[in-house]
């Protein structure tokens, strides 16, 4: 094997984030509790710098480097920028909560930055190994973040479950990858695709490998029946960590699905479409129905995530450019809505009070009409009510599914969305029609208030003018 000196330029953002994560780690060691905010600011600066790099390196061409193991393309750039944005907002929303609970430690931000690096590698991975590497970096960071609140029993339990189940899923992914490698003789996504295009794909080994990979992907996304970890982890983890897990990694997981299934195993579309149909249908129905029985808002949002993942899969399984664009639109919108929803929980929480029960939102309108309205926007958008952006996200993927000839699936999805509307609207009802159990005014700092307002208004604005983001998704996927 000839060692070829790689072109580092396409990976500059990754290298920057890696360096900065190490710098933050070292710097944090020398900070006292009082100065901890420097860690926070450095982390935000890292994300900002990465964003500047990614944007400035952006062009419409596709660049491969590291012997074809790393790719930089339009889709990757857009997804990465959204990952920076989402993580930056997560850090912002989390700060107050962490400070109040004495969890404001350097680890949260360092682990967060490493997770970002893992996601970036997943997004840009162009060989099975790179992708796996990115996924593991992300997962290990997340396991540790869930367990960060060491004294909390639920958090430890959640971390344990997450770790063990995640390990099983990683094992399956590796096994599936090895089978694919065995069948095609390559780890490179492009080569795998070329090989499959040459020979018909009804090889038993290939199909087994595909199945294992799909199971692993379904686990990472949280599709039924590989979703069991989601409610427990969402519920058990500290809310900022739940917010982190629920938002940016879904974008990365979408990228991984695109790289593996579409770019790599695209010729096997017929085979994986059937499997995804089952997963999507189960996820949408189960997610929508079980969420009704939840009293804890974090658990409810966990099931709602499962339903949203089902919708996301609808776009992918359609197997058309419009379907992929719809799915990408959906995942970006979903990340924004999740940010807002968990952000509201964080904003309502105080020392010794988590505000994660649905009942805690009772009478919010009397306590703060504006934030009740923001929450209303978020809930309506999640339920898919026009003119909020969640409606257009659902519309896009449903259109793709209908174009693919799966009308029954679209009908099922819409019916489930109706059921789902119940528990979103229940929160609205609690906010507007019930008496508050707690009359105190909301306490939160300015940047939190401003960002969460902007978050809600963005959902509304994108709903009124969805074509810009949609056009972006279509362009980068062409």
């Amino acid at each position, binding site marked *: 094997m000839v060692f070829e000196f790689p072109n580092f330029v396409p990976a500059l953002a990754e290298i920057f984030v890696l360096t900065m994560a190490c710098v933050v780690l070292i710097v944090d060691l020398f900070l006292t509790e009082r100065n901890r905010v420097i860690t926070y600011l450095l982390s935000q600066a890292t994300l900002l710098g990465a964003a500047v790099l990614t944007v400035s390196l952006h062009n419409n061409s596709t660049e491969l480097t590291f012997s074809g193991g790393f790719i930089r393309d339009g889709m990757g750039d857009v997804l990465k920028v959204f990952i920076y944005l989402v993580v930056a907002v997560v850090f912002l929303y989390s700060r107050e909560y962490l400070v109040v609970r004495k969890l404001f430690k350097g680890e949260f931000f360092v682990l967060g930055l490493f997770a970002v690096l893992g996601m970036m590698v997943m997004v840009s991975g162009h060989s099975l190994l790179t992708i796996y590497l990115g996924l593991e970096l992300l997962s290990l960071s997340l396991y540790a973040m869930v367990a960060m609140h060491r004294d909390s029993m639920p958090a430890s339990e959640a971390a344990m479950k997450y770790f063990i189940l995640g390990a*099983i899923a990683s094992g399956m992914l590796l096994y599936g990858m090895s089978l694919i490698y065995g069948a095609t003789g390559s780890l490179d996504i492009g080569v795998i695709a070329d090989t499959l295009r040459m020979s018909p794909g009804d090889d038993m080994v290939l199909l087994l490998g595909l*199945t294992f990979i799909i*199971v692993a992907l379904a686990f990472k996304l949280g599709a039924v029946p590989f979703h069991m*970890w989601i409610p427990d982890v969402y519920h058990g983890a500290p809310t900022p960590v739940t917010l982190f897990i629920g938002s940016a990694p879904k974008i990365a997981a979408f990228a991984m699905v695109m790289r593996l299934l579409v770019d790599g195993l695209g010729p096997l579309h017929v085979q994986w479409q*059937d499997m995804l149909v*089952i997963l999507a249908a189960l996820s949408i129905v189960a997610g929508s129905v*079980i*969420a*009704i029985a939840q009293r804890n808002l974090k658990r409810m949002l966990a099931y709602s995530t499962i339903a949203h993942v089902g919708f996301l899969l609808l776009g992918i399984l359609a197997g058309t450019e419009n379907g992929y664009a719809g799915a990408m639109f959906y995942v970006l919108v979903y990340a924004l809505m999740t940010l807002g929803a968990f952000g509201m929980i964080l904003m309502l929480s105080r020392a010794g009070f988590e505000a994660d029960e649905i009942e805690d939102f009772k009478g919010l309108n009397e306590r703060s009409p504006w934030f009740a309205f923001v929450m209303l926007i978020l809930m309506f958008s999640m339920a898919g009510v026009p003119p909020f952006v969640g409606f257009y996200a659902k519309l896009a993927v449903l259109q793709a599914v209908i174009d693919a000839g799966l009308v029954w699936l679209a009908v099922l999805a819409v019916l489930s969305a109706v059921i789902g509307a119940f528990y979103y609207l229940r929160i609205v009802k609690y906010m507007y029609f019930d008496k508050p159990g707690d009359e105190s005014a909301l306490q939160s700092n300015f940047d939190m208030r401003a960002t969460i307002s902007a978050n809600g208004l963005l959902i509304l604005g994108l709903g009124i003018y969805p074509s810009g983001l949609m056009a972006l998704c279509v362009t980068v996927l062409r």
Partner: protein
Amino acid sequence: MKGVYLTVVLAPLIGSIIAGLFGRKIGKTGAHGVTIAGVALSFLMSLVAFKHIVIDGAPTFNESVYTWLISDGIRLEIGFLIDRLTALMMVVVTFVSLMVHIYTIGYMKDDPGYQRFFSYISLFTFSMLMLVMANNFLQLFFGWEAVGLVSYLLIGFWYQRESAIYANLKAFLVNRVGDFGFLLGIAAILMYFNSLDYADVFAAAPLLSDVTIQVFPGVEWSLLTVICILLFIGAMGKSAQMPLHVWLPDSMEGPTPISALIHAATMVTAGIFMVARMSPLYELSETALSVVLVIGALTAFLMGLLGIVQNDIKRMVAYSTLSQLGYMTVALGVSAYSAAIFHLMTHAFFKALMFLAAGSVIIAMHHDQDIRNMGGLKKYMPITYWTFLIGALALIGFPGTAGFFSKDAIIEAVHASDLPGSGFAYLAVLLGVFVTALYTFRAFFLVFHGKERMDEHTRTHLRESPLVVTVPLILLAIPSVLVGMVAIGPLLFGEFFADSIYVAAAHDVLARIGEDFTGALGFLFHGMLGMPVLLALAGVATAWYIYLQRPELAGLIKARFELLYRILDRKYGFDDFNEAFFAAGSRGLGRLFWRTGDETVIDGVAVNGTAKGIGWIAARIRQAQTGLLYHYAFAMIIGLLILISFYVLL
């Protein structure tokens, strides 16, 4: 002239809007001032139109003033058709309305809903004018429904009274039945003629006289017969013909001016007017004419009989209205449309007069309407007495009064007709004359003559009504006497309705009578010796004998003919039947749909059942989330195995 016609219609509407919306601001004087000004203007403009069309002989005005929309080639418009028939109706409607407006100032003096009342009656005037001036079926239907609505509002004017609410609901529902037929008729016209314009429809009608349609499979009916009968069902509702008459007696729950204006003079004659207007259609269907004739004859006679047993003065007049509407319908049936309109006009005057006079009595009696509590009112209320007497004489067709000419013409026309059913109708209308005289003078004698049966308190307060009440009485008494003599010649035997009403030569009974017609006086002398006059006088004499000479006789007769009395007292059981069959039946049907259909099936199973079911499923499925790690891992393995076995091995 378009401006004049628009003024006729819009002046009452504007008055109504001002009195209705700003009644509290402008006060009582303002409310009656503005509405009376509107109606007076409307009356004056109607006179102008009458002069223009009738006296100056201007051609018929037929123009649309506003196009609402055009859909699939069908124009929906507001338009006016002003010919002699319309001009006559406009004058009658606005005149009676004006009288009622003035009279109301006195009658409703202390009512808290004073402004509302004026707003309603002006709105009614607008609606009625829209109805009679329409040049297309859509506007006709608009006016038709609008007068029905105002009638509903006015019957229930005293909405705190249980009986008023019952009565207005009944009127509304019974009219819905008629309107349903009416609307079907209009729909059939639209379907086959592809136009709603009178002129188009009348022009095309002869071409469609041979068309038959299947209403029920296997039964072929003439299209025009079906249309005419459907339209007539509408007329039966509005003009209270049997069996859709039941609402009219109950409508007396409304204030008396309303009974005079709406339930005697104008609205109830809308059906008569409509059939006369549709004469080009009816002339093409003898079947429909026979139906009209028989229904009218039944109503004329049977409703008159009911008048005999009424003790409420207004109800007595109401039954007499029913009976007289029956006479008009009979005239329509024998194609004597002009006679029907003639009787409509004379009846409008003398019946409004009788109602307002009855109202005057009611005011004096402190709103006690039971004639058994009256008697001897003649010396307390001379003006009311004389005007009521004039109205009563006109009603029974006393020679020389307006009612004599119009009713005698109808009876003659029926006699001359050879339509199937005309023999029966002739008998009915002849006997009806006797009955009319009997119940009218029974009430007259009981109210104004004989022993004073009221309590002491009422007697000491008896006095003649104020000028606003008596002046309209006098003004209405004049045409009640004179209009017949003046109008019979041109209206019935002249060319007055030549342009408005079409009568097929074979049906033209009036022309046959007209051959002997030498003038009003000749008609008068000829009629003096005829059967109707003798029967009327016999009726008056009978009433005089029974109720003044031998008051104990009434009780004896009642006891002897117990069964007959009970039948009449139960009003032939129409109300009981409707109550037991239609009302209870619909309530039962409603309850069935409510309990079984709505509560059980839709709410219970479909809506709440689904919600509960999903909630139940959710509660069950969440049990799968045990919290145990090995269950989760197991679920993953099962999922993997299922995917492998489905998609790889199979």
